[in-house]
């Protein structure tokens, strides 16, 4: 399997993940090995087979439309690295 360093950079961008130069090189090599191995599945005959969509194919698992408030609202914000007035603080978006 040929994996280019540009592809690894593209994947990291899609995942919004920064990689160091060293990591780019390492993962390019790793992906070549892993994908070569993973590619074996393309030799399997899967004609007439549907994809598995979920693990255990259950249908219509639905919830009633009834309000149940989560009580411990403070706990929802307790882990925020940066918050103000009950909101999560992020860099300016506009």
């Amino acid at each position: 399997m040929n994996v280019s360093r540009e592809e690894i950079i593209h994947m990291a961008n899609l995942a919004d993940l920064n990689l160091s130069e060293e990591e780019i090189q390492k993962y390019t090599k790793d992906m070549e090995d892993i994908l070569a191995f993973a590619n074996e599945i393309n030799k399997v005959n899967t004609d007439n087979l549907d994809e598995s969509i979920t693990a255990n194919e259950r249908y219509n698992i639905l919830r009633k439309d009834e309000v149940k408030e989560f009580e411990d609202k403070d706990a929802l914000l307790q882990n925020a690295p940066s918050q103000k007035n009950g909101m999560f603080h992020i860099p300016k978006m506009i």
Partner: protein
Amino acid sequence: MELYELTVHELNEKLEKKEITSIDIIENYLKRIEEKEKDVQAFVTIGEKLIEKAKQNPKAIPIGIKDNICTKEMKTTCSSKMLENFVSPYNATVIEKIENSLILGKLNMDEFAMGASTEYSAFHKTYNPWNINKVPGGSSGGSAAAVAANMVPWALGSDTGGSIRQPASFCGVVGLKPTYGLVSRYGLVAFASSLDQIGPITKDVTDCALLLNYIAGYDPKDSTSVKTDKKDYTKALSNNIKGLKIGLPKEYYGEGINPEVKEAILRVAKQYEQMGAIIEECSISANNNALATYYIIACAEASSNLGRFDGIRYGYQAKKYNSIKELYRKTKKEGFGPEAKRRIILGTYVLSSGYYDAYYKKAQKVRTLVKQEFKKLFTKYDVLLTPTSPTVAFDIGTRSKNPLEMYLADICTVSVNIAGLPAISIPCNLDKTGMPIGFQLIGNHFTEELLLKTAYAYEQEEKFREKHKPEFKK
């Protein structure tokens, strides 16, 4: 005999007879942890004020929890820098269900359950109680090592591709991966949603049934959990397995399986035969592609599941950033370890346009094939007998550099997750170097009772726990 050497059902008997209280148990375990934790390093967090808690609940049994199961009273770190200080605002459903329990501590694991040796914990490695130069397996390595070292009487782990069974096998304890949907996943920090299950890691099969009694059952908070009748799994335990049909799928005994391991498992088959079971070789050819299928699906789901760790609402946040992109990208670069990043990249790759059909979609078709082949096998056999792992516990540092080699450690366990089946690992012997060998019994969906019974019958015959004890070899 020390209390920490007893199983939970033995402790329960003593509690019932009022020979001991929870305080005695806790004190005894804290003493043991004091002695052994420095060698084994199974814990991420050890509980506080445990004796006071035991005073309020004199029949409580201590438990260890893998650190990817959310608890309000202690941090839930997933052994990642990303969640180093994270305290969940809610308890996982399994935590609500193990009433009458005292959480002794949260147990080490491979970061976000990605690994087979617990070497990928961001905090520290965990060491195998049988030989501390060896890995305890993973990703629930802390759970298995803590049970084996008698630092907790039992523990909860999670299993996505073998993460309960393989460390149980490496550490000479019992580990059960339940049928997908039997135990609620609500509160289990997701690695691969369609494969993850929580399950017990225990000293013996009876404890395994007992802990499953607590955690099994439908949860309206988990759409994939299944409505089942409430069962007492301990009632299924008996020695009588006459006429039981056991299949030995030959793909599990081929190349790559250590000869000593193979020999040990074939001896188990013989023992079952002597106990009245019918043993037959069989085949599941799709198993040859299960590992590739597993890594494609697991990483695809993981790449999506790990996206939420963006440094905004919880978890690690990069120190310096000038834009939202920079906040995301630096937080993930600094917060995730190398294996998590590797799987995010692989998962993103197999889902990205241009590769989706060849990898993700194809893997989901092979998944259907694996399910079908198992289904066919279970029309002929009651259970399947295989090794849990191709080798015994390997030396620390020998595989962590080569990801593909590490992935091969899962070769005997992943197809069970792909098909959503239950499977249990039970110790059967030691190899020449004194490391435990485990075997795996695989059952059809929701046949945990049969699996436990089959495992129990063997346990009564072999009495591994009475013969062998971890020696903390250095």
